């Protein structure tokens, strides 16, 4: 099951060239870039690990791409994403966020239904990969 989170996630995986163009678009808009990775991509997991510090004052995508490649090489069995933060007053939020790398095999999620009080149905999403301890997932 292909994980669909963030921008472009319903498209085929982006090539390096396409990633560089998106990064350049973000930089042209003065959005600082940060790189994050995780092996727990639950939709409610907003806290991925930071790869290095956010990169401020950059002008050219080449600088970011070097780090993107390094992050992927160091975390081949995890998800890696690129975030662009719009710091403008009034916005101050992630303006663009897309996955640049995913593990080779993605087992996906299981939907669990439990009967709650008064026979209400509660839904729960459970990642198959997360059954294993951190660092051993997606291998």
């Amino acid at each position, binding site marked *: 099951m292909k994980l669909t989170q963030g921008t472009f996630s319903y498209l085929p995986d982006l090539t390096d060239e396409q990633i560089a163009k998106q990064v350049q678009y973000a930089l042209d808009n003065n959005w600082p870039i940060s790189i994050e990775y995780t092996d727990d991509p639950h939709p409610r997991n907003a806290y991925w690990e930071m790869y290095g510090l956010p*990169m401020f*004052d*950059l*002008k*050219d995508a*080449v*600088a970011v791409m*070097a780090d993107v490649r390094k992050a992927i090489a160091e975390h081949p069995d995890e998800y890696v994403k690129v975030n662009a933060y719009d710091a403008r007053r009034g916005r101050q939020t992630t303006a663009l966020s897309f996955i640049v790398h995913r593990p080779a095999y993605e087992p996906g999620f299981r939907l669990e239904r439990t009967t709650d009080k008064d026979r209400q149905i509660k839904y729960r999403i459970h990642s198959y990969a997360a059954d294993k301890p951190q660092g051993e997932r997606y291998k």
Partner: protein
Amino acid sequence: MEQAAAPNLDLTEAYRASNVGPILDKLDRELVGLAPVKTRIREIAHLLLIDKLRASVGLANEPPPLHMSFTGHPGTGKTTVAMRMAEVLHRLGYIRKGHLVVATRDDLVGQYIGHTAPKTRDVLKRAMGGVLFIDEAYYLYKPENERDYGGEAIEILLQVMENQREDLVVIFAGYKDRMDTFFTSNPGLSSRVANHIDFPDYTHDELLAIAQLMLDHLNYELTPDGKIAFSEYIDLRMKQPHFANGRSVRNAIDRARLRQATRLFERGGTVTPAELKAIDASDFRRSRVFASGEQS
């Protein structure tokens, strides 16, 4: 293959299309003197343009070496020329963004083991697609201290200068004699810096012309007496230590503006627009430079 059929290229047209002309003209207009520098910049621009044309008809050649060294005393316009150079390189398509990142030793060299590499890389990252201007570059290399981390910064610089030539251009700047020692003690660096440009000191008349440009820009005018006083001021200031060419002129004008404002206030009453514009001899004469016998 199409080019082979139409081998004639219009040089004038290519020059016009590159939009480099206006920048070079601006350089001529805004910078007084510096004739050798302007000639060199023009020569480099021509070479780059010809190289582009050669590449377009398939004449194989190596990308021209672009890293530069600007030597000269303080205030001779090194940073300003570097900014124009960045624009020229950008218009000719040799760098993608055309911005200038100014760095000194403090920005590149760390304070403890392992601190230098990330610091240098960070600056290099910011300069990607543009020009990295390293002011007083010789401070990077301190032979008297073998535990200095400057060497590490130089190594990383060298690596990027060699491997990512299409991504950024590095300009080293500083005093001539010290830069020469710096380059002799770092042969690897010296061989990768192709263009050495020396910035001559300004003459007395050139400094006056610079002052005139600055005053025009600020909407001030020298009175006839003021002109004489300023000319004498320059003569005296040039003989004093720490004379910084264009920068000293700027400072002198800034202080004269201050004295003019005080003079008008002390007099009180009404002022005419002409008086607001005029800088008088007394605004210069009260400077420390005129106080005989006293240095500094």
